[in-house]
Every structure is written in C-alpha cells, then in structure tokens.
C-alpha cells in the first residue's frame, strides 16, 4: 500500500514536472523586440520625457504604447547616425509603408484579472521609475531589469505605506521631468500630509 502510494505520488509529480518543460513558459529569447528600440537613446541621451510617447499615462488606466505614427513623425526626419541605428530606424519606415503596426512584446505584464490605473498613480505624484525602475538607462529591457516583480505582495506593501505628501502629491526625488534624471541638491517641498493606498481587494481585482 505504502509503495503504491509513494509510486503514485511520484508519478503525479513526474507528470507535473513534465508539464513544467512544455513550451508555454517564457524564456529570455521570447522577449526579443521586433525593433531594437533603446530607451536609453531616447529618454536619457536625447532627454525625451516618458509622457512624450506614452501619452495616456496621465489620463487612462493604460499608459499606452506609442502608435507607429508617433515614431514616424520624428523618424521620418531623424534617420540615425550609427549603422545599427540606421538599420533599426529603417524598420519603422518599412512598417509604416506596409501600414502595419509593430508587434511589440509585453515585458511589464499584469495578469488579466488585475485592474491597474496608471492615471491614479501618476496623478498622485508617483514617478514612473518607482515601479518601472530607471528605464532610461537601459538599451534593452528584459524581465531581469524590472525593478519590481509586479507581484501582489509588492503592490500591497506599497499600499500599506503612509506616503508623505505635499499639496496632495506624493513627495519623491525631484526630477527634471517625469522619469527623467534626478536633480541633485534640489530643495524638498514641505510635507503636509500622508497618502495611503486602498486595501480593498476590489481596487485591483476585477
């Protein structure tokens, strides 16, 4: 009886582990983007603010991936300086001529049962980097570069915190622009209150 049960449980375990190696699990190569877009070149070297492209972050739940027309508006003029830049920028032109959108791959991916509002967090004064990290320093973003794992525990931890505010806006490091470089020795605004996220499950679970 004991042998049978142990055998059976190992068998179940075996079957489960077999499923583990099925191709549904994402691996690093899967995140290769169709165009080698560099956040560093845009946001850091050329100081393009985050919300210049991600225009919906302030007014919607979704920050939005820039539509191809946004890329094309600049890159119909800016063709790149280095060879590899020229090669990648040419791809935009190709997509545009084919009238096809770019099939980007999602790195910061929340589960489908989660409701997350960019608008609410941006309007409360949080900076993009608080969740996404210093994206502007990265050429290629992978899962490993994510500042936060976007797990529920991480969300709840932050929602438990009493965030210090000034004029109803959360105080953080002073930056040149949202998501941009930190201004050193900037004067800190005066604290006048705190802000805490809701702990109702229905705030995020939909």
């Amino acid at each position, binding site marked *: 009886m004991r042998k049978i*049960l142990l055998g059976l449980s*190992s068998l179940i375990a075996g079957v489960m582990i077999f499923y*583990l190696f099925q191709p549904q699990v994402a691996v690093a190569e899967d995140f290769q983007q169709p165009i080698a877009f560099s956040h560093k070149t845009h946001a850091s070297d050329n100081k393009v603010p985050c919300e210049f492209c991600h225009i*919906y972050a302030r007014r*919607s739940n979704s920050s*939005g991936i820039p539509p191809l027309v946004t890329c094309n508006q600049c890159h119909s003029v800016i063709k790149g300086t280095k060879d590899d830049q020229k090669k990648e920028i040419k791809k935009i032109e190709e997509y545009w001529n084919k009238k096809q959108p770019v099939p980007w791959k999602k790195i910061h991916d929340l589960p489908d049962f989660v409701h997350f509002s960019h608008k609410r967090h941006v309007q409360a004064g949080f900076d993009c980097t608080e969740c996404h990290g210093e994206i502007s320093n990265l050429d290629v973003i992978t899962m490993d570069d994510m500042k936060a794992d976007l797990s529920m525990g991480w969300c709840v931890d932050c929602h438990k915190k009493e965030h210090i505010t000034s004029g109803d806006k959360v105080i953080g490091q002073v930056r040149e622009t949202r998501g941009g470089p930190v201004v050193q020795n900037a004067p800190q605004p005066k604290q006048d209150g705190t802000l805490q996220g809701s702990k*109702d499950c*229905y705030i995020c679970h*939909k």
Partner: protein
Amino acid sequence: MSKGMKRRDFFKVAATSGAAVAVVGCTEDPVEKIIPMLVPPSDYVPAVSIHFATTCQECAANCGLIIRTREGRAIKAEGNPEHPLSGGGICAIGQSSLQGMYSPSRAKSPATQNDGSSSLIGWDKGLGILSEKLEATKAKKGKVLYIGPARSGSINKLIDRFVKGLGSAKYLRFDSSPTNSIKQANQITFNKNEIPDYQLEKAKTLISFGADFLESWVYPVKLTKSYTEMHAFKHGVKGKYYHVSPHMSLTGSNADEWVSCPSGGEAIIALGIANQLLGKSKISGSEKKALRDYLEEFSAEQVASQTGVRTSKLEELAKEFGKNGKSIAIAGGNTAGADATQLQVAVNILNYVAGNIGQTIVFGADYRIGGDSTEEIVQALKDAGKYDIVFIENVNPAYALPQDSGVVEALKGAPFVVSLSTERDETSALAHLHLPTSHYFESWGDSTPRNGVFGLQQPVMAKLPMFSTKEIGDLILLAGSSAGLSGFDADNYQEYLKEQWQAVQKKMGDRSAFQTFWTDSLKKGGQYRDFSSDKVSFSTKALKQKVKSSLSVNGMTLLAVNTTLHHSNGAAANRSWLMEVPHPITQIVWDSWVEIHPKTAVKLGIKHGDLVEVKTPKGSLELAAYFYYGIEENTLVVPAGMGRSVPFPTYKSSHGKSIITPVIETKSDLRVEGFKVGENAAGVLPFKTDAQSGDLVFTSGGVSIKPLGKKAYLVTMDGQFKDDIEALEADTLGLMGDRSQKGRGFVQTTTMGNMLGHSEEKAHGHHLRHRLYTMDRKDNTDFYDPREEDVAYHAEWAGKKKPKYYDPYKWEMSIDLDRCTGCSACVVACYAENNIPVVGKDRNAVGREMSWLRIERYIEKNEETGTPEIYYTPEMCNQCGNAGCEPVCPVYATYHNEDGINAMIYNRCVGTRYCSNNCVYKQRKYNWRSYEFPSPLHLQLNPAMTVREMGVMEKCNFCYSRIREMKDIAKDQGRVVADSEIKTACQQTCNAKAITFGNIMDKQSQVNKIVSTTKRGYKQLEEVNFKPSITYLKKVKHNNRKA
C-alpha cells in the same frame, strides 16, 4: 490514519504531490504581444469606454442604441435614453445583436455556389460577375426581384432606383410578423392605412386579444414602457389588464386575468363586448343604428355559447372597458389566425364604440412596422424563374416561410440568385452568388420608424477583419454605377446619407450649418420630434366585414408563437445567449417544445416531458411535451424561430465521464460544428395567408398529437426534479410537478385595498404559511452587531486601524415586482456585460448554468378561478450585509467590501464551494470547466471583467466594473458619484424600469427614497437575517383572488 498507511507515509505522499502541484501552479504566462494602433483617432484613449449612438435593425421598430466600445471593439449594446421609442431600454433580442455581429456563422467572403458546393472568390471577382449580369439585364430591360428586410430608411429609395433602373423590377420587404392586417383593418375602418400610436399609458383598462405586446407585437419596447406606466402601482392607481387568447403567453401571464377562448374566438368576444357597450356609447344617429344591427348577433349568450366565456365575464369585461375613452383594446400577432384583418376590424369597432379612437389610439404616427404582404412576396418568389436576377438581402424566407409555400424549390429553379446577407443562412445557401454585407454595427444607415423620428445608424467599429464584407449602401452604389445607372455617383454611402439628411434638417426646421446638425444627430442617434395627430372618422364600410359568429372546430389547433427570445424570422436562433437563457414561462433551454393542457394530454396518454409527434396537415415535428395550464384545452403551442440549420458552437463536452481524474478541457478539445437546436415550427404549417392583408398565418387547424413512447431530452431550469413531483402541492396530473413557491414567499403580493388602507394584510400571511421559523424577536433587536461596529470592534481588539465601511457608498437595489414583466432582457444584458460563459444543454441539465441573474418563475393556482397565476422575480446576488458566504470561505476569496459588495476574488478562490452551500439564495455559480468563447465571439468580451477559469466560484457583483468606472471618473473630477450615474446592466436595459440601483447612504438617492418610503418593500428570506441589499417591492393585485 488507517491500518495501511502510517502518518509519516502520509506526509511523504502529501509533500511530493503538493510540491508538484505548487510548481505547476507557478508557471509563467507565455509572452503577450502589445500592438498599438498605426494612427489612433484623436479621441481614442486605451482602456476607456467610448460610446456610439446608432439604430437597432433587429426589427423594424428601430430602437435607438448606444454601443459601448473598448479599444475599437463593440462590447455592449444599450438603449438610447434620448430615443422616443426605446427611451433607454432594449429587448433581449436587441441585447443579443452583438452576437449577431460576432457570429461564428457569418459569411467570410464573396462566394459562388453551384449545387451545394461553394468557392470563395473575393470581391473583385464577385463584383465582376455581378456587373456582367447587371449589364446584360439592363441591356435587355430584364426583370429584377429584390427582397430586403422590413425597414424605413434612405436605403429604400436607393434600392428602388437601382432595381427600377435595370428593367421592370419589384422591390419587396419581407417580415414574417403579421402586421399588415392592422394597416388593412385601419384602412377599412378609418380610411387610414397605418399602424397608429397605441398610448397604453393613458388607458385605465387594457384588453389584449392575443397581442403579445410585451414580446413581439409591433413595437414591444415602447409598449412595455407605456404598459408599465399604466399598469404598475403608482400613487394609489393601477390599471387593469385582461388577456383574451387561447394561450397565456408571457404577455398574457402579466395580465390581471387571462380569459381563455378557443382560437379564432377573439373577434367574437370583441364584438360581444362592443355590443354591450353600444347602449352607453356617445355614438348617435344612423351610425348607432348601423352598429346596432351589426352587433345584434353578438349577444352575450351567443358569444358565451360559441367561445365558452361566461356571460358574467363578458359583462365584467364590458363594465371595465366602458371608461369613456380611457381604455384600449389591441389584437393580432401570431395567434390571430386566418382572419387577422377581421379580428382587427372587430377590435377597431370595439375601440370606436368605447370612444378610444383619438384618445388612446392616435393616428398620424404611421409606424413603419412590418414588411410587404407575405402573399405578394411568396407569389414573387414562386415566380423566381421568370426573373433575370433575384436579390435577397438579410432575410431568410427559405427558413421563415412554411415549406409548403414552395419558395425553396422556386429559388432552386431561378436563373440567378444573389444573396446579400451577412450570415450564411438557409436562403443564402440557395444563391448562385453570395456577396456578404457588413453587419449594421459596421455600416451607415438611417431609419424613420414613425413620423417625426429620424434615427441615424453609424458604424460603431471598423469592419471585423476576419470577414471580407461591404456595407449594403456602398454595395448598391457600386452595383448601380457599374451598371451605368445615373444617381449612383456618391463616393460612398455615408456621403449619400449626408445628402439625404439635408432634407431631414429642413423637415426639422433646423437652421444651423449642416455639419453642426449632422454631428448633433450622430451624438443623439438621430433627430426626434412629436408627430401631429390625425383625426379619423369611422367608415361604415367596416360593417360589411362579416365576422362569423360561430366557430367550426377541426382537430386541434397549433399556434407557432414568438417569444421574447425566439422570433419567427429565425435571425436570433443561432445566438447562444438566447438559447442559454431559459424561456421565461417554461424555463426550457436549448430546445423547442409543445405546450399542452394537462387534461388533454392525460386523455391522450401523454406525460410531462414525453417525446410527442405533432402532426399538421403539411408535416410533423418531434417535440417534448410541456404541461401548462395557461392554454386552451384544444390548442397546442410551439415557439417559432428555432431549428435553424446553420453551424454554431455546440458547447458540448467532448469528454466522457471519468471516474479517477477530473476532466481538463482545453481549447483544442472543443468542437465547433453545426447542430440544430429545436424544431422550426413555421416550417410545418400549411402555407396560408390572411385573404385581405396577405399576412402569414401562424396557426393550423386539423392538428393531432401522439406520444412516441420515449422521454424527450428536455432541460428546464425551474428545479422540477423528481422530489418536487412528490411534493405536497405537486400537480400529479401527468407528473408535471410543483411549480409553486412552496410557501417560501420569494414573490410576495399585496392588494390594492391593502395599499389604499382599506383592508387587512391578507396576502402576506398566505404566502408565509409554510414557514417554520420567523424573525419575531420580542425586543425587536438584532442578534448581530451592525457590520461597521463589528469590524471596528475586531480591528481595535487586534490593534489595527479601523477600516471605513459604507462611507460614502453602500450600493443597494430595489426591484419592483409590480413592474417586472419577466421578459429576460436583463438576463441577456448580464451575459453580455459580465463575460458569462454559455455552457450548453448538457451542463444546464446537471445544474451547471452560469447565469448571474435569473428570472425565477413560479406558477400557482388561483383557488377561485382555477387558472394559473404566474409570478416572475429577477434573482441575483443580494450582496448581503451579513452574508452566509463570507465567513465560510477558508481562503478569504469572498469578503465584504467597503461599498457593501460581497466581493469575489477569483484568483484567490480554490473552489471549495462552501460559499455556495451556505448561500440561501443559491446565487453562486461554480466554474466546473474553463468555458470557451468560440472565435470571433471572444471579441465581445468586456475587458473590465475577468474571464473566469475552471475551479472558481463567481456571482453577481452589482456590475462592479461599472461602479469602478464611474467612481474613477468622479474621482478625477474631485467629487463623489452622483445618484443614477451608475446603472447596472440589468437596470439599464429594463424597459419596465423595475430595477433601481444606487447609494443607500445618499439620502437623496432614488433607491433610498424608494426603500425608505415604500409600504410594500420586503427582503427575500428575511428570517435568515443575511441582511440582503436588495429590497423587493410586492406585486400589487386588484383583489385577493390571486394565489
């Protein structure tokens, strides 16, 4: 532990399998793509709903719609509150229009068809073939036939010009609903060939002679609204409604009294009442004399002997109806039978005698309901062989007409049939060339359902990419210009429509710039104004109509009826929501049935649920027998509009039963193949039309029924299981069981006398007579603390910060059962809003339906009259303040949220189902499988709601996604949500305005006012003290005879 296993072994087993499960549970999702738009429209914002006003084309009533879109996809259809006909609500079929657009059985691309084989050819080739044919026809001035749907818009003019330009042509509009008899009778009686405005709200008494005005008769959405205005209890007043028909339909079940009469007896009764009223009538002189002569033979005694309606009942009807123009009689619909026009004339005479014309029946509106005479259409189709081209656009005569009509054979013999239908249906299968048109959600159009209403229909989204289609307007313009006709040079149909609307602007007397007018019309869904009423006078010509005062009976009579979910045109019969939602009276899903009187059935040796053969003179059907007292003893009723033979998802499990391991169903397992649901009742009727109007007759005499000695696979959702049949109150006749409330008092009633303070509360005690326990605590205190105090106590005790409850919101609902008609539009709306899966017949049979909202139906017997009384109540999660489900959840997947909602966190749920066991209202539904939304139906899914998977519990959450959306908008504007800003999906679609929803903490809110001031509020199963958030308002009866 038992002998065979030691404790340590148990842990080993548990540990290894547990680890394995844990590992599998944490596999990552595959990489998702995030594809932005190429060039977004200027007002586009992702994750924000955008609403478009358009017009419903499911029937010719053309209600106004507001379509909610997300990321460019239509996800929900709602009524347009500004539209004078729909006024905010829509019907069940209108709700399901989304499934029409995302239908898996839509035609993919143009195709040529030859002897059953079809090949996809693409538009270039398809249009090439068409223009070749058109040029040839034009050259020889050939004959053209165009059959289109019944509608009233600019497209009619365009099509007319198109077909007439080709040669000698006929353009006919097909609608199987019998409405021409109304126009014809008004022509005879009042010299006015129109469908008038029936202003039920002005009447105190309503008599319907078989007209199912809450379901399908002329413009049901508007009539439901005005009916509730008249009939729902308000300020101490409530109208009376009698239904005179051989069949107590859903509409009839709402009546204060159903008067059973044999099929064809309606006209006799109408004239019998007129006869009684004539004495007191204001009509005078020769007219009165002529009427007296005419009505002479319809004395109470004569009518009683012919129809079996007692003279005392006739006198009562006459007394109630004589209200000096404050009453209304209507008639018609599928039960009208072969002499539909005569019945209409009889009812016109009755209304005229009662002085209702110009009072409650107002001419001048000219409703464009219904198509051309069916007789004429069938004649034209039979001559299909003589036409060079036959166009058939989005109508399905091959399905909707009786097989006996010979239309299918005629179409097979036609030289060239072009189908312009959106779906691949029975008629397009007979076409030589199929050029699929876009769904109306993807097309431009307009409509004029009555004088003064100009509805505009705009595309609410881009054309679905998987279907290569063209808008009907564009297609006609293309065809016209390729045939070299003049007047077809508009760039596209939108431009053409704008030209046409310049005339509308003039008619409306609008002087702004056209672009302003156009944008305004698009926003409002059209332009609306009142119609000017026309005076009509009685024409004694009507008295030449001889209504037979005696009935000849030949065998049994079969009625093929429309319901709120099934329409004889069959367009809605392949929409899974309408199959899955139980028919309000029978509670049958995924099937058609035959309703039979138990006494008749027992005489013929038929038991409830038996498979029976119904034989008409022209065919036979195998159906399940459904025992129903709401039917005349010599009549059988079968729902029309089912039995389509088009492919749509089967929703059948592909696995057998497995004993050891649970069955895991993946996407690849699910079959999507053609199968037939129910039987086409109209198909076996002998083809007959009303001689005067050409209306199709949906009744057949000479019908027989016999048992086939087998049980049918009949699935009813009213919980009629074996135990019920042995219940105390069970009707043992033919084992039909107990359909009553079994004393549980879900639907409570009160009387007019009680409401006005004249009599004691009798009804209440009656309903609760079976209760074993009540909540009569002497000191009137509660066993439990209020939730806020309770939570505050525990938080303090644990040293935590106190959470805020019910500040500023606590969502509550009130449901007025005196208004609810049971139409089930709310149920369909709930399916659409909340991504509720359709599970199919097999799973419904084992009680695994997923509906969050159900219309519960109870049938009780009127002790005095012996007729059945039907009660409906919408049942959904009560969001209890002291819920049974919450404390038993071992993983806190369900909890009480700050707004008073019993929140359900799906990914936290482990599926113990304790909550469901502990819910007294049985409102929790468990996902036994991961259900499939077959492509492209998945595109309709609401992104604001999770699509649930196998193993989790779910239930109504008061449309929390809508609450969240509105709270979000309010927060942006720095305010709290105002009253009636949030409407739940069920409330939004309700034509009867039975549901009120809002914040009970707001003293000014509508729901607070109702709940705090009503004298007829009650909570269901109040004695278990779950503190439900839904307050039901008792149904008000005129007297206490009921139940």
